[in-house]
Structures are given as C-alpha cells and as structure tokens.
C-alpha cells in the first residue's frame, strides 16, 4: 500500500489529504482473471468472426450477382429519343403531312426561385389566364421530379418565342422546349386520305411494346395504315443517375431512325380541282389509273380539318363534327355504300354477254312492264321501242335489263357481281372500308325471313333495291373493264406494285363490248357531258333512287329541287378517258345530287379538264339531249 510512482501532477499537489486520496492501491494477492471470463471473451470474438464472415459470404459471394444487378438497376436508366415521323408527299413531292417544330414552355421547379411570380409571367407570355396555368402546374407538379422540366404551355407562336428567349434569363427555371408536331397543310383536301396522328392510348400501348406514353401514333387513314413505315425507330440514351434521379452522364446508345418518307400517287392539284368541282355538294370523286390501280385523286366532301386531332380535339369541335348532318367524318369513297343506279348496267351487260346473250337480240321496250300487279317502268315514258344490248346501255333502257335479268336469275347475278369485287372491300389501304351489299336469296331469307321475289331481281338489274356499292368498288370495276379484267387493289402509295385481287370472269370480247358501249354512251348517249374531241372517252351515268319513285300530281315525276334533300336521288357517273396513251377512270358520286348526267357528269368533265387540259370547245352542253326527255324524265 505504498505510493509507487507519483507523477508530475500528484507531485505538484501539496495537500496531504489529496495525496492520500490519490495514492494508488495495489492488491496484495496475485491477480488471476476469472477462468470463465477468459473463455467468455474468446468465445465472443469467435462468434463475432464466424457470424460476420458467414453473413458477408452469403451477401457478397452467394448472392453477390443478384445484388450487383440491383445496384446496376439503381443507377442505369435508358431514355428514349423520338424518331421523326416520315413525311407524306403527293405524287409531285408536295408535302401533305409534315413535322412542324412547336415551342413549349417548361418549368424546372428546383431552379425557380419564385414559383407564383414565374407562373404569372408564363401566363402573360403565353396569353393564357393565370388560373389555368396554376391549375395545370398543381395538377402535373407531382408527376415530375423537381429537377425535371414540367411542361406548362405546349404551342407558342414563333414570334412570341423570340421575346420569351430574350427575357428568359431573368426567370430562372423557365425553358423553351422544342417539340415536333404533325401538321397537315392541305387540311380538308386530304383529311380522309391521311387521317391523323394522336397520342397513343392504353390499348395501343398494350399491343405494341415499342410504344411509350406520350407517343403519337396514326389513328386513322394512311397515318394508321402506314404506321410501320412512317414511325421510324426510336433511339436510346443510356444514362447514369444518382439516388435522386439526377442525370450524371448520357451517352447515345442507339441513333434514332427516322420514319420513311412516303410518296402518294395522289395529286394535290387534281384533288383541289375535284374539291372545287364538288362545290357545296356532298359527294365524292375517285380518279384511278386502270392499269396499275393507282389512285390519282380521292376526294370526299364535306371533310374536316385533321389538324384539329393532333393535339387532342376539343369537345366542342368534336360535337360539331359528329352532329353535322352532312357527316364530314364519313369517307364517302370507301365507307358509304349507295345504290348504283344505272351504272350497274355495266355489270349486268357483262353478265349477259358471258351468259350467251347475243348483242343482236333485241327486246321491245314499251316504257313499262307488268309483273303481277306491279308496274316496272323504264325511265323513258313511252319506251325506247326495239333495243339491243348496246342501245339499251347507251340509252340506259331499264326494260331491256328487267327482262334479261329475269332470264339469268338472281343467283347468277349475285355470283357474277361478287366475282367482280362487289359485296366485299377492295382492300384499299384505308381503315374501315365498307363492303357494300350484293343481295341474294340466302341473304334475304336470313335478313328478312322471306323468300326472294322476282321483282327484286328487276330492281337489282338496274342497280336499285337492296344493292349497295361503294364508289371505289365501281372505280375498280371500270378499271377492270379497261385493263382486261384484272380486279386491282386501289393503291394510294406511289411505289406500290399493282396487286391483282381477282379477275372478272368474262372474255376479253365481253369487256371490249362494254367499253365500246361506254364510248358510245359518251359520244351520243346519256354520258355526253364528258365527251371531248381531243380524247377517247367513255361513261355511264346513274341516278339512284333513294325512296320509291314518287309521282306528283298527274303522272309527272317530281323535279329534284322539289324533293326533300334526304329523298333526292344519288347522282352517279362512271367514266374513263384516254389521251396520249394515258387512261384514267373517273367515278363521281353526288349524294342526293339528282340526275347522274346533269349533276355528276359536269364534275367528271371538270376532272378530265384537269387531267387532259381544258377543252378547246365545249361540246354543245346547252343543247337538249337528243332523246328529248320529257320534263321530269331523267335519263340515267
């Protein structure tokens, strides 16, 4: 119990009591640490080593690969680069669908010092009410990280952008975003052909894994049909992010491949000419090259401005379009089946010839025939007298067709019509094509539960009754007459290879006969309106009744202008013209237009004016028709 080694500190202290207190007590006995204590400590160190090393082995070696993958996922992200969508051009290279650069304003919250003031500024720049801007800010704020741009305004005119750019420096966090937007400079002229693009919906996303939220895809028309060619392939950035999602670096992993530029066979100028020719009428025009199936024009009127849809159409605009009684959303060329009227006689004539009817065989037309207690009239009161196949076509004699059709029967008519492509879509590259309808015994039984009657065969023979045809089907058939019987798929794309879908089951002489009859019809028959001295022309008109023939006081048919719009006849003309080895088929259909030769004919003539150049002399348009139709009688 002695003070062994007082250190400097204790030496300095003089106080005796303190010295005693500070003295070091030394145990007298030899110290032996407790044996179990020694074991305990060693065991604990052993456990420490064993547990930690086992766990480290498990985490780093056994499951290391999986954790390495998770670490990789933590930091590497892929970002898409949008590929420019291919442009669509007309046959001469004029742009029909373009990618316009639009400017938007976005806000990076993190960089923005005073958000309310900045929002007010943005509202002023864009000319949008402040509460609208604030609302969109509050709505979208949480979807975007603080350091990511939050899109506030989508489409700012370029002149405003210049001003904003110059003032932007005093507003940190505001960015001008350049985006690409589809635009259709021709608007209505091509709306039904091009369709439009719009933001992808959930169903499309589910179907196509290469799409992502916010992508634009074709929804209608060629934009939809040619989607795979136009879309291109997205590029990819590979980027490394930190725990907050902030991008550290970015490398281009895959260059975006822009979509293919597609040139159409359509001609803007012809399309415009057709549009102007239709004027206020609701109707449509198809111009087709009979040898290739290429369409030179596909006009349907009224139409809509497809630019409305690219940034999401407003409810108001949509209601206006949808509730419009003239159905601007309807592509009449392919989606509207109409009774073809006398144009149908082309098909019937082909059938008769194929069935062995001699062109020389004549029939007497008294103006009407009786079937039971029903009277079936010819359009010409008093009748055509004696007619053979050719004169029946040229003058559109109904009675000839009633009688000959009865001889063939509906089954043969149906089979032949279907073989000529009627009753089924032509396969044009546009969505929602209608099939039309070729009635049959079986169809009637299924549909109405009643057997076919002979009178219906009469009606079908002159393109009336339940028979329905789309204008494009008619154009395809007339083309087949000219090209030797090939039923071609109508093509809209310039580099498309002609595609024969079927063949008209008729001998070449038959087709020649019908073509020749059309030539005569244009020269001296009901389709004289299209004739021109500088070209070889052919045609067939049609006036399709919408309601059963109505007779006004006396025995006179009502004039078109006296009828309700929805009860007026549809005016048809199916024509062809050849000049300088170029042949075109022009089919015009004017909905509730009235007479085929008086309404549809002049429109077709205008198309030829455009195709072949203006006529040097007008072929006696004012002259009364040689058949001297009586007032109210409409040749068709």
């Amino acid at each position, binding site marked *: 119990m002695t003070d*062994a*080694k007082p*250190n400097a*500190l*204790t030496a300095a202290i003089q106080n005796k009591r303190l010295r005693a*207190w*500070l*003295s*070091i*007590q*030394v*145990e007298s*006995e030899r*110290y032996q*640490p*407790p044996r*179990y*204590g*020694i074991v*305990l*400590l*060693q065991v*604990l*160190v052993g456990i*420490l*080593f064993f*547990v*930690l*090393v086992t*766990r*480290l*082995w498990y*985490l*780093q*070696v056994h*499951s*290391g*690969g*999986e*954790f*390495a993958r*998770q*670490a*990789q996922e*933590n*930091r590497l992200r892929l970002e898409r680069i949008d590929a420019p969508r291919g442009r669509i051009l007309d046959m001469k290279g004029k742009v029909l669908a373009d990618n316009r650069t639009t400017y938007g304003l976005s806000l990076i919250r993190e960089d923005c010092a005073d958000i309310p003031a900045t929002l007010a500024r943005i509202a002023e720049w864009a000319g949008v009410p402040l509460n609208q801007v604030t609302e969109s800010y509050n709505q979208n704020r949480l979807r975007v990280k603080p350091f990511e741009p939050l899109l506030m305004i989508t489409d700012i005119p370029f002149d405003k952008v210049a001003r904003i750019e110059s003032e932007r420096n005093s507003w940190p966090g505001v960015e001008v975003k350049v985006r690409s937007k589809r635009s259709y400079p021709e608007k209505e002229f091509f709306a039904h052909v091009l369709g439009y693009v719009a933001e992808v919906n959930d169903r499309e996303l589910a179907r196509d894994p290469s799409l992502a939220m916010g992508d634009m895809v074709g929804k209608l028309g060629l934009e939809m049909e040619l989607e795979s060619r136009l879309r291109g392939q997205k590029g990819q950035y590979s980027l*490394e*992010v*930190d*725990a*907050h999602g902030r*991008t*550290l*670096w970015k490398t281009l992993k895959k260059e975006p491949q822009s979509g293919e530029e597609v040139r159409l066979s359509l001609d803007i100028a012809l399309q415009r000419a057709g549009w102007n020719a239709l004027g206020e009428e609701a109707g449509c025009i198809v111009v087709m090259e009979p040898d290739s199936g290429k369409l030179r024009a596909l006009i349907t009127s009224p139409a809509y401005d497809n630019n409305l849809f690219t940034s999401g159409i407003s409810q108001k605009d949509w209601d206006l379009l949808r509730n419009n009684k003239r159905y601007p959303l309807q592509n009449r060329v392919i989606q509207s089946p109409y009774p073809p009227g006398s144009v149908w006689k082309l098909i019937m004539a082909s059938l008769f010839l194929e069935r062995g009817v001699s062109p020389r065989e004549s029939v007497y037309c008294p103006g009407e025939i009786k079937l039971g207690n029903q009277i079936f009239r010819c359009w010409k009161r008093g009748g055509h007298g004696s007619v053979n196949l050719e004169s029946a076509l040229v003058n559109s004699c109904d009675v000839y067709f009633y009688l000959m059709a009865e001889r063939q029967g509906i089954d043969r008519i149906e089979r032949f019509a279907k073989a000529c492509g009627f009753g089924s879509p032509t396969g044009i590259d546009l969505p929602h094509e209608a099939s039309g309808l070729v009635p049959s015994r079986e169809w009637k039984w299924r549909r109405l539960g009643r057997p076919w009657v002979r009178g219906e065969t009469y009606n079908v023979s002159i393109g009336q009754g339940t028979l329905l045809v789309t204008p494009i089907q008619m154009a395809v058939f007339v083309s087949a007459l000219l090209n030797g019987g090939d039923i071609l798929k109508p093509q809209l794309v310039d580099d498309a290879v002609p595609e024969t879908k079927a063949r008209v089951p008729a001998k070449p002489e038959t087709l020649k006969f019908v073509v020749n009859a059309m030539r005569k019809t244009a020269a001296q028959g009901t389709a004289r309106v299209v004739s021109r001295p500088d070209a070889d022309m052919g045609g067939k008109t049609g006036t399709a009744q919408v309601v059963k023939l109505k007779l006004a006081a006396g025995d006179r048919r009502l004039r078109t202008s006296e009828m309700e719009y929805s009860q007026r006849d549809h005016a048809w003309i199916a024509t062809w013209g050849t000049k300088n080895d170029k042949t075109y088929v022009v089919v015009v259909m004017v909905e509730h237009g009235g007479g085929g030769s008086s309404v549809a004919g002049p429109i077709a003539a205008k198309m030829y004016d455009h195709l072949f150049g203006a006529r040097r002399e007008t072929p006696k348009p004012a002259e009364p028709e040689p058949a001297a139709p009586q007032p109210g009688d409409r040749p068709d």
Partner: protein
Amino acid sequence: MDKRLLYYINWGLLAYVLILYLLGVGNLYSASSTRLGSGFAVADFYQKQLIWGVCGIGGMLLAMTFDYRQLRNLAWPFFLASLVLLCLVPLVGKKVYGATRWLSLGFMSIQPSEVAKLAVLLLAARLLAKEQRPLGWKDFLSVLAVGLVPSALIITQPDLGTTLMLMLILAGMILFRGLRGHILKICLVSLPCIAPLMWFVGMHDYQRQRILTFLDPGIDPRGSGYHILQSRIAIGSGQLWGKGFKEGTQSQLRFLPERHSDFAVAVFGEEWGFVGCLCLVTLFCLFLLSIFSTAVQAKDRFGSILVVGIFFYFFWQIFINISMVLGLMPVVGIPLPFISYGGSATLLNFTLLGIVLNVSMRRFMFKS
C-alpha cells in the same frame, strides 16, 4: 518515467488500430466523394477525421503518461461530473435531427454521453475490482445503478444506441467478473419480461418502426426499409473482389444513406468486396484479442476489469454496427470504431486505447 515502459508498449495493438484508422480515413475519402456530371465533389469528412485522429492520438498519449491505477481514484468525481454534463444537455443542449445530444462549447461541440461512457467504465471497474468472489446482490445492484442513472438521462435525449451500449458494456463486465449462480439465473429469467416493457414504454415510434422494418424491409422500401435494402445492395454488389476504390456506385451516387457515419462499412464492402471485408473483420478480431490478452495479463483486478470494459466497448460497437449494415440487426445509431466518421467518438476511442496500452505496458511493474 521508467524507460522500461516504452519497451513494454503493446506495439501490435497500436499497429492494428493505426491500420484500422487509416483504412477508415481512406474509406471516408471515398464515401464522402460524390460523383457529379463530370468529376467528383469530395466533402471534407476525411480531413476532419484526420484532425480528430491527431487529437485522438494526443488523448491516447496523455492516457498513457500516468499510472492507470490513479483512474480508480478519479472514478467517482469523473462520474459525478459526467452526470452534471448530462443534466445540462436538456437545458442548454443543441438540437440536431430532433435529438438533443450535444453541448456547444463555442469552438466545438461535445457529446456528454460519450464522457458518461468513460465515466461509467471507470466507476464500474472500480466497484467490480473490490473483491475476488463472484458478485453478490449488493455489488451487483450497485454496479447496475451506476449504469442506470446515466442511462436514464441519455435515453431521454433520446439516444437509444448509447443507452444500449452502456448496459451491454456493464453486462459484459459483470459476466466476465462472474455472478453468483442464482443471480445469473434470475437475470436470465427476468430479461424476457423486461423486453416487452422496453417495447411499449422505453421506445419511440421511430425505433419500433426500425425494428419492424428490420424484420421485413419490404414493408417500406422507399422509407425506413430503404437503409437496409440499399446497404445490402451496396455490400452484396461488392461481390468477391469489390468494385475498387472510389468505384462504388451505391455510395458515390448517394443511394446509400449515412454512408460516412453508421453505414461506412457498406462503402468499404462495396469497394473492397468479400476479400476486403474478411481482412477488416480479421483485423477487428485481432484488435479485440489483443485487448483481451491485455486484460488477462494485467497485474491487478482493476486494470483487468477496466480493459475488459473497454473490450466490450469496442466489441459491441463492432458487432452491432457491422451486423446492422449486413442486415442482421435493426438499424441503431451505433458507429463502427475507427471506420465511421465521428469526432468525439474518435477522440474517445483513442483515449480508451491509450488506457489499454497503459495497462498493457505496466503489466510487469510489480512482478518482483
């Protein structure tokens, strides 16, 4: 001072510590760097740690200069002083992250709970060194009281980690010292009864949440389970050889939270892999074993028990911290000695090491 003392310095122990400390500083350099778009930003944690290390070595040298047996005399005044400091904390303490643990001295902040750890160590060693026999009720309860009084003050800060550490160190010392058989049995039986009491009374909601997310980190992968998941990903993705110094993506890209303090070893594991971790754990074990042998070789009971206390001080921290980072234990705020960043902790660690070295070099003093 006796020249022989220098000869008896436990150079092996010192070497282990210095290696650990330098590994820690290197790891901190990596952990505090943040990769930006181009290049790195390095926070100054490793520099501070270096300064604290120098201070710590000063403290260590100071703790070696005097005969450790004088600490026995200082035990009571030191204990009382630490209680005063602890009482000051709620009155004038600094609030950081919702907990009041710091006293500001103007130029620096100290954590009185760190001082209390040392004080409890000394006083417990003094009390336990009284007799040779296994502890009876009286001594057992008095040692327990020495632990519980500061614990009660610390837990209100709140600082569950330090409280837990204090009790665990005491438990280790008592177990080493030996208890009468029936006391040990009663303790073993009553512990499971106290545990639920702790759960309902002693713990804050966030602490309960930590235990729940430890049991199932998937409960809240973005919230409280985030630490555990990201730490496991960091360690695991190191695989066998590691990603290399400053190549750890989890830490450099800030996925790993608390990467310079409590989760520093996750950074180490990510960058040095299983091999590096194996070396680190081995180093820690060697370090503990050489403290252990100091305790065994000590010439008197006080020195021996004091070193055992220090052994447990390091042992529990190493065990709990690494287990927590490896997902073997719930997240508690206990740093890893010499590896995690922390000023007062580094100072205290080196000072305690100084005491161990002190005991070690005086082991032959009274042999003759």
